[in-house]
């Protein structure tokens, strides 16, 4: 069974008398347990596609299935880390991370314990009682990551999650994401426009052209576990990087 099966999907946004076409006739298959990176330039419809996979919006045409079942709305088995921070500003870090379990009706004590364990895992120990506005951008990303993981989703959707961070922090968080994912059996769909990030993380990179047309589907055969710092100097890395850069052009 596939994790995601996208068949002939189109997405149009009404604008006055016209429609803005974001995606047209997209086909994509995501295997369970794989780390798939969708690579594309700004405006190619990557985020639109991710919103569709998450069930936040419905396609204008075609079909999307998750684990064999049609996607009709957001599901808790799918976690989604958006580009912007969507932490509740009136909740401290702990209460934010608790939220997925709180909404599921879990008891106060269990969800608190789970949240604190996750906060520790993403390296936010000591900031449990801080409000989002008191955190730096990188720390907010960590908190968002912890919140997504608190729902224990089987599939993770990540939309340029580290795009707004400085290069060092991005590398650091990429490493942590790989550690959290490695051996978890979770399926990941990761959207980025950064070729280096794509090669560092992915099992497979799918390059999207205009309107979500698939330009290249490239398996990344670098050994795992990978270290984001070391992998960049690998000769194979450079070769893969070059091919992706060509496809993006």
């Amino acid at each position, binding site marked *: 069974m596939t994790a995601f099966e996208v068949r002939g999907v189109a997405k149009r946004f009404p604008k006055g008398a016209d429609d803005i076409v974001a995606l047209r006739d997209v086909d994509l298959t995501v295997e369970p347990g794989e780390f798939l990176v969708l690579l594309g330039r700004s405006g190619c419809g990557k985020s639109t596609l991710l919103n569709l996979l998450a069930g*936040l919006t419905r396609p204008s045409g075609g079909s999307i299935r998750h684990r064999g079942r049609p996607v009709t709305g957001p599901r808790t088995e799918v976690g989604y880390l958006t580009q*912007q921070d*969507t932490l*509740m*500003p*009136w909740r401290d870090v702990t209460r934010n991370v608790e*939220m997925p379990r709180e*909404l599921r009706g879990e008891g106060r004590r269990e969800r608190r314990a789970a949240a604190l364990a996750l906060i520790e895992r993403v390296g936010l120990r000591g900031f449990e009682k801080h409000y989002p506005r008191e955190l730096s951008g990188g720390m907010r990303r960590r908190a968002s990551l912890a919140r997504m993981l608190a*729902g224990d989703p089987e599939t993770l959707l990540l939309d340029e999650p580290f795009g707004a961070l400085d290069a060092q922090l991005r590398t650091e968080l990429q490493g942590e994401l790989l550690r959290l994912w490695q051996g978890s059996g979770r399926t990941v769909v990761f959207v980025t426009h950064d070729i280096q990030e794509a090669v560092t993380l992915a099992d497979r990179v799918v390059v999207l052209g205009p309107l979500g047309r698939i330009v290249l589907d490239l398996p990344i055969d670098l050994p795992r576990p990978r270290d984001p710092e070391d992998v960049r100097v690998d000769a194979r890395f450079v070769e893969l990087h070059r091919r992706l850069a060509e496809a993006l052009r």
Partner: protein
Amino acid sequence: MSTGPVRERSGRGFRARHGRTATVWAWRAILLVAFLVAWQVLSGRVLDPQYVSSPDGIVTRLGDWLADGTLATNTWITVQEIVLGFLLGAGAAALIAYVIAPLRIVWDVLDPLVMALYSIPKVALAPLFIVWFGIGTSMKVLLAAVTVFFLVFLNTAAGIHDVDPALVDAVRLMGGRRRDIALKVILPASLTGLLTGLRVAIPYALIGAVIGELVASNRGLGYLISDSSATFDTDGVFATLVVLSLVAAALNALVTLLGRRANRWKPLTT
């Protein structure tokens, strides 16, 4: 995570930390005293006390009123009208805003009507309120309530409409239902709007009540003003104005307190 700002003791003394505040307060005191002295000296020599009264006359009048209970009774009546009017107006406004504002289509229909009603000067409603409710306390309470209502209603509605849709989506993604979205996103997010409305509205409750008293009444601070001026008793007018500004200052202190509570977290700006 070793990077980031740290906190250190600065070693600055009292002057460095509070010098500016102290200077500001000192100048305020100096200005006030100078003004009062000038007023006292000029009144009776250059200016006619019949028109401008004098600090001395005002203090004497306040003393008299305090002794015979005029001040306490009338201030108490006005304060009651303010508090009742505020609670009534704010309560109704918040309730109605939370029912109507989330229903976008209903809001769009009603919006221009509400704005039209809001734009009516509330003084203009006073004669109508007298016809409807007589000249008793309820007329003043309702006039204050109407003034408060629109401010709280419009600010709360704006707060509800300003809720970041990304936060709503986040809760949907976590498996939240309509009820969760209402209670865990819309309500807390719009609380800043509600609090802004309450803060802005407090002084207007005072205005509404006093206007009601000025237009028609036989008790309250507004009545004291109109009664004193009718008998050309400027001491009485100024004495009442002093009491009114004290009441206003107390209300403003309350507003500041509310503002501090609301500032504990601020919306994310990234």
